[in-house]
C-alpha cells in the first residue's frame, strides 16, 4: 500500500438496467469530484488536496452480475488490489451480501446508494457504513407530503417492481398511509417483474380500479417505460401518481415527463437540492462536465466521498499526520456528521453506521421556460422521516411515527 495515495474501490453499475439511471451518473459524479478534490479545488471544509494530502486513486468495478459475483470482486479488491476503502453498491442485495464480508475481511466499506433498511436493522457491523438514508424515508415523506398538501385519498393502488425494493417500498408507503389516512383502502397492488418493459396489462388492471393515488417505486428503464406507456392512456389524468424515487428520469424524459406527479428523489437532490454554496459548486462542476443536472445517484456518490474524506482527514490528524489505518478511519466515520450538497448527513442510526438526512418531495410542473421541473417543494427534516436509533422502520411507522421530530 502506498503511503501517499488513498486507493478506493468504486463498485457501481456500468452495464445492465441500473447503469443508465444510477451506476454511470454516480460514477460520473465520483470522477469529477475526485478530480477536483485531488486538485485541491473543493470549497472549505473540503479544500485539502485529495484526502488530507493523499491522492485519491479510484479502481472501478462493474456491479452487474449479482451478489455472488460482487462478493468475489469485493474480495479481489480488498485482498488482491489492496484498496484502502470500498465505496459502492446500488443494489440492496449486494449491500446485504457485502456488509458481513466487509467485517470478515476488516475492510472499510462505504455503501453509498442501496435502499434496504435491513442492512443495519438486522445486522451490526464494524467496518461497513452507509452514508445515505435508507428507503423508508422516501415513502414516509411521500405520504406526509400528500397529507400536508391536503390531498384527499380514499383508494390507493401501486405498481412496483417484483423484488425486495418494490415490496419494501410498497409496504412502507401503505403503512404510512394507514397512519395518515386511516380510512384509505388499497384497491390494487401489482408487481410486474423487474425489467419487464411492457406494462400494458398492469396499466389496464390498475386503471380499471381508478384509485385516487397510484404509487410506484420503479426506477430507471422500468419507470420510464411505465410513464411512456401510461401517459397516452390517461393514467396521469385519472389518478394522482406518486413516484418515490422518480427524479432521475426527468432529464432523459424532458418534455415527456407528465406534470403534477408527486415525486421524490430519495433525498434533497437535484431539482430539490438546497440552495447552499456547496450545492452550487457541486452542480456547477457536474454540469460543466456533463451538461446535465446531477440527479440522485451522483449526489449520493458525492456525499459518500465527502464523508469519507473528512473521516480520513480526522483520523489522519489523530494519527499524527500519517496515513491512518482502516480502524482509525472507521472510528472517525462512526457517528460523524458532515455537510453534503443535499444537506447535513448524520451517521445517527445503526450504532453510528447508518446515515440519516433531510429530504424533500415536490411536484412536477413546467417552469417559465416551459421545461418540466419540480416545484411546490416541501422539505422534511431528517428526524421527521427517519426512525430513531434502535427502532426498526416498519415498527416505527406502525407505532404512528413515535418520536418523529417534524417542524
Amino acid at each position, binding site marked *: 500500500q502506498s503511503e501517499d495515495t488513498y486507493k478506493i474501490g468504486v463498485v457501481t453499475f456500468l*452495464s*445492465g*438496467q441500473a*447503469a*443508465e439511471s444510477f451506476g*454511470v451518473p454516480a460514477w460520473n459524479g465520483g470522477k469529477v469530484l475526485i478530480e477536483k478534490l485531488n486538485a485541491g479545488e473543493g470549497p472549505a471544509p473540503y479544500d485539502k488536496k485529495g484526502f488530507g494530502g493523499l491522492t485519491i486513486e479510484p479502481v472501478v468495478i462493474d456491479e452487474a452480475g449479482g451478489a455472488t459475483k460482487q462478493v468475489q470482486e469485493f474480495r479481489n479488491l480488498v485482498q488482491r488490489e489492496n484498496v484502502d476503502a470500498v465505496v459502492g453498491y446500488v443494489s440492496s442485495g449486494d449491500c446485504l451480501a457485502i456488509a458481513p464480508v466487509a467485517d470478515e475481511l476488516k475492510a472499510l466499506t462505504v455503501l453509498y446508494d442501496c435502499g434496504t433498511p435491513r442492512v443495519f436493522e438486522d445486522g451490526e457491523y464494524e467496518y461497513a457504513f452507509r452514508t445515505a438514508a435508507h428507503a423508508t424515508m422516501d415513502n414516509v415523506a411521500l405520504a406526509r407530503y400528500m397529507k400536508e398538501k391536503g390531498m384527499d385519498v380514499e383508494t390507493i393502488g401501486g405498481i412496483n417492481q*417484483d423484488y425486495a425494493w418494490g415490496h419494501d417500498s410498497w409496504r412502507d408507503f401503505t403503512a404510512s398511509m394507514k397512519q395518515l389516512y386511516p380510512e384509505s383502502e388499497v384497491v390494487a*397492488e*401489482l*408487481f*410486474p*417483474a423487474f*425489467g*419487464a*418493459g*411492457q406494462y*400494458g*396489462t*398492469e396499466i*389496464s*388492471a390498475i*386503471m*380499471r380500479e381508478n384509485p385516487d393515488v397510484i404509487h410506484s417505486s420503479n426506477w*430507471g*428503464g422500468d419507470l*420510464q*417505460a411505465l410513464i*411512456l*406507456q401510461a401517459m*397516452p*392512456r*390517461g393514467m396521469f389524468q385519472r389518478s394522482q401518481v406518486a413516484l418515490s424515487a422518480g427524479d432521475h428520469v426527468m432529464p*432523459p*424524459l424532458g418534455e*415527456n415527463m407528465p406534470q403534477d406527479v408527486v415525486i421524490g428523489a430519495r433525498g434533497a437532490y437535484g431539482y430539490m437540492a438546497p440552495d447552499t454554496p456547496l450545492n452550487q459548486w457541486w452542480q456547477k462542476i457536474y454540469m460543466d462536465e456533463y451538461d446535465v443536472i446531477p440527479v440522485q445517484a451522483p449526489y449520493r456518490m458525492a456525499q459518500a466521498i465527502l464523508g469519507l474524506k473528512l473521516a480520513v482527514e480526522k483520523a489522519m490528524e489523530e494519527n499524527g499526520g500519517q496515513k491512518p489505518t482502516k480502524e482509525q478511519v472507521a472510528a472517525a466515520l462512526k457517528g460523524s456528521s458532515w455537510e453534503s450538497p443535499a444537506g447535513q448527513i448524520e451517521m445517527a442510526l445503526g450504532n453510528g453506521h447508518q446515515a440519516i438526512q433531510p429530504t424533500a418531495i415536490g411536484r412536477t410542473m413546467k417552469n417559465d421556460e416551459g421545461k418540466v421541473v419540480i416545484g411546490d417543494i416541501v422539505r422534511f427534516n431528517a428526524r421527521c422521516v427517519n426512525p430513531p436509533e434502535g427502532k426498526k422502520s416498519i415498527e416505527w411507522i406502525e407505532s404512528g411515527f413515535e418520536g418523529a421530530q417534524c417542524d
Partner: protein
Amino acid sequence: MDYLLTILVDGVVYASWLFIVALGLTLVFGVLRILNIAHGSFYALGAYAAASAVALSNGLGLPPALSLLAMLIASIAVAIAVAPFLERVVLRLFYGRDEVLILLVTYAVFLMLEDITKLIWGVTPYYVFEPRGLFGNVEVGSLFYVGYDLMLIVLAVVCGLAVWFGLNRTIIGKVVLAVIHNREISAAMGVNVARVYVLAFFIGVLLAALAGAYTAPLISVQPGISVSVIILSFAVVIIGGLGSIPGAAIGALIVGIARAAAVYELPEAEIFIVYLVMATVLVFRPEGLFQRAQVRKI
C-alpha cells in the same frame, strides 16, 4: 364481459409483441438449427437503430407518418450490417457442432453485442414516442388503448403470414427445408447452400430488429432491454414447438393471455406463469404444441 375483454385485449397486444420476437427465433432455429441467444441483441439493435432513424427523420422535418417507414429502414439496415457478417464469418465456423455448443456461441455473441451496442449508443436512453401518437387512442370498454399498440397486432399477423407463406408455400421455402435436412446432398442437387443460410439468418435478424424497432416507441431504449426478451421468447418458441410458426403464434397467445389473466387474478404468479405454462405444455406434448415430423429411424 368488459373485464374479459380487457384481459383479451391486453393479452393479445402483449402476445403480438412476443410473437414478432419469437418468429425470428423459431425461424433461425428451424433453418439453421441454432437457438439464438443473440436474438435479444438484434432486438436491441433494432430498437436503437429505430430510435436514431426516427430522430433523424424528425430532425429532417419529415412528416411523422414517415417515421414508421424510417423504423422499417432502420431494421433492414441492422440486418444488412449484422447478418451476413455474423453468419459468414462467425457462425459458419461452428456449423455441424452440437446444438448446445452453438447455443453458447450465440451467448458469446450476445455478450459482445451488449458492449458494442453500448459503445455505439452509450448508456443514455433514447425515446421515440412520436410514432406512438400516429394512430390515436381507441376506447375499449371503460379503458383507453393506444392505437399504435393495437397496430402491433396487425404487424404481427402480417409478419407471421409472410414468413409462414414463404416457408411453406414457396419453392424457396422448400429448398430451405432441404438444406436444413442435409446440407451436403442439397449442394449435390444444385442448391447454393451458403446463400440459403445467409438468407435465413438475414430474415431472422430482420424480424428481431423489426420487433425491436416497433417496440421502441413503447419503451425507453437503453442497455438491458435485450436480456428480458430472450428467455420469454424462448419459452414461447418451446411451447409452440421449435421451428413451427403457427406454434409460435399460439404459444405467444397462450403466454400473453395467461399473463394478462395472472396480472388481474393472481399477481403473485405473474413472474413464473410463463414457465408454468411451458412446463404444463411440455408434460402433455413433450416436443411442444406443433412437433416436427420425426424421421423414420428403422
